[in-house]
């Protein structure tokens, strides 16, 4: 499979993992290895002196690049501060920008996200914004200097798949930065569909970490992303209303 390139950095895996929802660091570790991911998100939270072990140790041991997110932020100001703290703590200027509108849907707030993106790009960050499946917003964020756009398939953790494949295709058609399908993936066919629609990568967490067997689902996702990418590159046949014989009709 061809490399994924984000902000000049190459990745041979097109599956980006999240780390939320895993029952333990051991389960997470096994799932990340099985997924073959090379880029994985973490959240920034108040340090808890009682907690044992760190997700950072897992990523470091496995040689996986860390992608801090701004999960939990409701305003551009909070997101910018969180990104700056992540840069300080994790020594990376990459950030998955996530500014949510409300806790019930966890849908991204487009106004705050755009505001934060402009400020973070100006501050030298490599910005990967999580957005709704909105082609106009995706284009504006690319113009603002974002390194990728990350439209959702469906709300975070919902497992509803890609609710608006048409909009994802419109985003892909117009984008010259990578399009990463983020959120909503429920099972392997959803990930394959994202790649068939032309997305450059898929980001998922819950579908793996809360599966009955996370390591097995991680393998399934890895294979699905590869299959979807190859199918996209191969070029699918057109859909037809009626049959078209694949064998000669005359004996």
């Amino acid at each position, binding site marked *: 499979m061809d490399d994924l390139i984000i902000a000049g950095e190459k990745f041979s895996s097109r599956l980006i993992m999240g780390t*939320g929802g895993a029952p333990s660091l051991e389960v*997470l570790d096994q799932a990340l290895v099985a997924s073959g991911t090379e880029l994985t998100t973490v959240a920034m939270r108040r340090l808890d002196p009682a907690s044992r072990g760190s997700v950072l140790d897992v990523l470091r041991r496995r040689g996986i690049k860390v992608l801090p997110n701004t999960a939990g932020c409701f305003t551009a100001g909070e997101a910018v501060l969180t990104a700056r703290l992540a840069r300080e703590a994790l020594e990376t200027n990459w950030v998955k920008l996530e500014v949510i509108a409300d806790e019930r849907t966890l849908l991204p707030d487009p106004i705050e996200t755009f505001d934060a993106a402009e400020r973070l790009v100006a501050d030298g960050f490599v910005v990967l914004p999580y957005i709704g499946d909105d082609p106009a917003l995706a284009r504006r964020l690319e113009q603002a200097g974002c390194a990728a756009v990350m439209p959702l398939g469906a709300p975070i953790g919902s497992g509803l798949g890609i609710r608006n494949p048409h909009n994802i295709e419109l985003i892909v058609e117009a984008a010259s930065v990578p399009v990463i399908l983020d959120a909503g993936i429920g099972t392997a066919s959803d990930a394959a569909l994202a790649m068939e629609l032309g997305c450059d990568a898929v980001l998922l967490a819950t579908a793996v970490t809360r599966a009955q067997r996370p390591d097995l689902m991680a393998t399934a996702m890895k294979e699905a992303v590869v299959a979807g990418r190859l199918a996209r590159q191969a070029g699918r046949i057109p859909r037809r209303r009626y049959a078209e014989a694949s064998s000669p009709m005359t004996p």
Partner: protein
Amino acid sequence: MIVTINGAAHEVADGITVAQAVRTLTTATTGVAVALNDEVVTRGAWETTELRERDRVEVLTAVQGG
């Protein structure tokens, strides 16, 4: 004086530094970042930045998420 560290009020000695405040929570110096009243304090400035009455210190690290 009273300062807030990760949301909890603490009675501390005058002149306590950011570095000392961090050490009340952890001995780690990597993978950790500090905001003082919503501004980042870079690690190089922890030892020289003194807290004032009613300052708010946030000590953050990476956790599972996203």
